């Protein structure tokens, strides 16, 4: 284990942290307001695709991130209208959105770029790294931005009246309603913030980190983000740390795969299951206790 390896593992983990952290932070905000969404995987897929299109049209990676956020917003509106305003089930729309995401991106890559399975995003349309070394290790500006977003989200949720209301409509919407808080509006807003953050995360995959759009680009990160949200106990700052751990395990599993001596001793698949096992242990209350907001996933209808 040498210095170069440690640096590349650290930078790799930070790069992998960004999409999981952004999506988890969004999911924390949405569930704090009482709205469950398991469609982040589909949002990541579609915003990676549309983000790349925006970026190439404008020849600017930041416009790509904006395009991703807009894609997320549109999907969030669909989810929000069904769950918040029509009082529908919170889990079912996400299942549909994930299917649309996987089908739509595979379809879209062929329909829009005419290539099968993957499209390389033009280098000029990608976000430039803050720092880069001779070995290809780099640091994206999205890393400090994500860290900042985690702290801002925490401050917003726990230190501002807006955050207090978001938590109130997720914990006890009846009481919030009695105090004159517009439950539906706050829930809908929280869903939109969450979907936009997941949208940025998706675009980050294509116009920054991976620099390509593939038909499996989200690779389960939308679900990992949900696991991480539970792991964090619905706290944005812990979600940031959790995302780093998930990113680290991800890189570590790849390292083991490429290391013949280690690969012979521990199957890399065992390392890959660790984050999920740890999350289960946390949720089961064996170490710590993760409790969801009281009205999480339940539609609120005024009596």
């Amino acid at each position: 284990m040498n210095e170069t390896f440690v640096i590349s593992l650290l930078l790799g983990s930070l790069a992998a942290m960004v999409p999981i952290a952004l999506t988890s932070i969004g999911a924390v905000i949405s569930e704090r307001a009482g709205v469950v969404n398991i469609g982040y995987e589909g949002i990541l897929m579609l915003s990676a695709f549309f983000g790349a299109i925006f970026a190439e049209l404008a020849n600017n990676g930041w416009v790509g991130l904006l395009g991703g956020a807009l894609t997320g917003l549109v999907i969030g509106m669909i989810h929000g209208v069904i769950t918040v305003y029509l009082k529908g089930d919170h889990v079912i729309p996400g299942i549909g959105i994930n299917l649309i995401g996987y089908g739509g991106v595979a379809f879209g890559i062929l329909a829009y770029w005419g290539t099968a399975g993957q499209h390389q995003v033009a280098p000029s349309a990608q976000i430039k790294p803050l720092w880069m070394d001779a070995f290809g290790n780099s640091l994206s500006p999205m890393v400090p931005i994500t860290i900042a977003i985690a702290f801002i989200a925490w401050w917003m949720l726990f230190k501002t009246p807006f955050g207090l209301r978001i938590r109130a409509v997720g914990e006890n919407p009846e009481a919030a309603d009695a105090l004159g808080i517009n439950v539906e509006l706050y829930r809908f807003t929280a869903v939109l913030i969450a979907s936009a953050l997941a949208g940025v995360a998706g675009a980050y995959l294509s116009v920054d980190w991976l620099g390509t759009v593939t038909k499996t680009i989200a690779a389960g990160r939308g679900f990992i983000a949900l696991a991480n949200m539970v792991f964090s106990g619905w706290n944005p700052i812990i979600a940031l740390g959790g995302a780093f751990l998930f990113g680290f395990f991800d890189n570590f599993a790849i390292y083991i795969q490429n290391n013949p001596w280690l690969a012979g001793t521990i199957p890399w698949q065992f390392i890959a299951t660790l984050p999920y096992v740890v999350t289960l242990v946390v949720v089961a209350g064996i170490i710590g206790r993760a409790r969801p907001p009281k009205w999480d996933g339940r539609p609120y209808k005024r009596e």
Partner: protein
Amino acid sequence: MTALEELKGYIRPLGESVLAILIGALIGAIVLWLSGYNAVAAYKALIQGSFGSLGNFAETLSKSTPLILTAITFAIGARTGLFNIGAEGAVYFGAIAAVAITQSIQNPLAGILAGLFIGALWMLPAAVLKVYRGVHEVISTIMFNWIAFYLASWLALQVFENPMNPNSTLPIPPGARLPLLVKNSTLSLAFVIAVITAVVVYVIMWHTKLGYELRTSGLNSRAAEYGGINPRKAMLWSFIIGGMTAGLAGALQVMGIPPSYSISQGLANVYGYGFDGIGVSLVGRNHPLGIIFAGILFGALNAGATLMQQTGVPLEMVKVIEGIIIVAVAVPGLLDLFLKPLRRGKA
């Protein structure tokens, strides 16, 4: 309840599902048109490819087989008030179990029983976490699906790998394979087994005491408890039966599909059925008999996609249509949104 009343109760959910399917087809056509494809030609090929000939229809039924079984997993959960999306993992292990046991016992029944047993066993931890620790099943089953994926990949690649063919596991020996129903197709006895399973589950859920307990605790677990039903027991059974049908799906998927009769690399031929089954169950209104038809519909989409691809439309378009159907199903009172203006027009 008379038979007529029971029939009437089915009309509304049927109408809602048909409407959702129409919306899926319509929006799918719009997407195709916007992307510059010929939607009419694509849909013609889709129907031709799934129902156009005996061979194509056999393919449709073959593709529907695992979907019917994983949909039942979800449906039993939903009827018990659970959101069990863990069928995916149980499918992998059902397939591995069938491959493992048939190496020594060359009998299809052994494979089927192994699939049922391992499927139920894999679902138990999620059941125990739910019942005794209050862990929400959506979260635990998502975790278990990932754990299953990595463990099953390892088992397939390292433990049961085929030394003659590194791209797959050991094949199911000929003595344990299920007979084909239509020559030169992939339709085997597996489809019949899936349909029988659906009917058996229907009988259990609607005509036995256990089924009554499951459904009652699903409707209102407190009222059920007051009425002398143990909702914890009901939940455990719901996970166990659901795990069995998902495990069976995996076993049948390797025992009944020529030519490989094995699990391919990356679990490709057993991957995704647990997720797709959720959609099938929703369109089938979480009812075993509705699921048979919804399963055939989704099977038809998957079978017809191959021919549709020849008109230039990417295969994955059918996933988009499926996704839109599910989002449409999720809209509460979908039928009323359409029927109300109609009724007003009449008056």
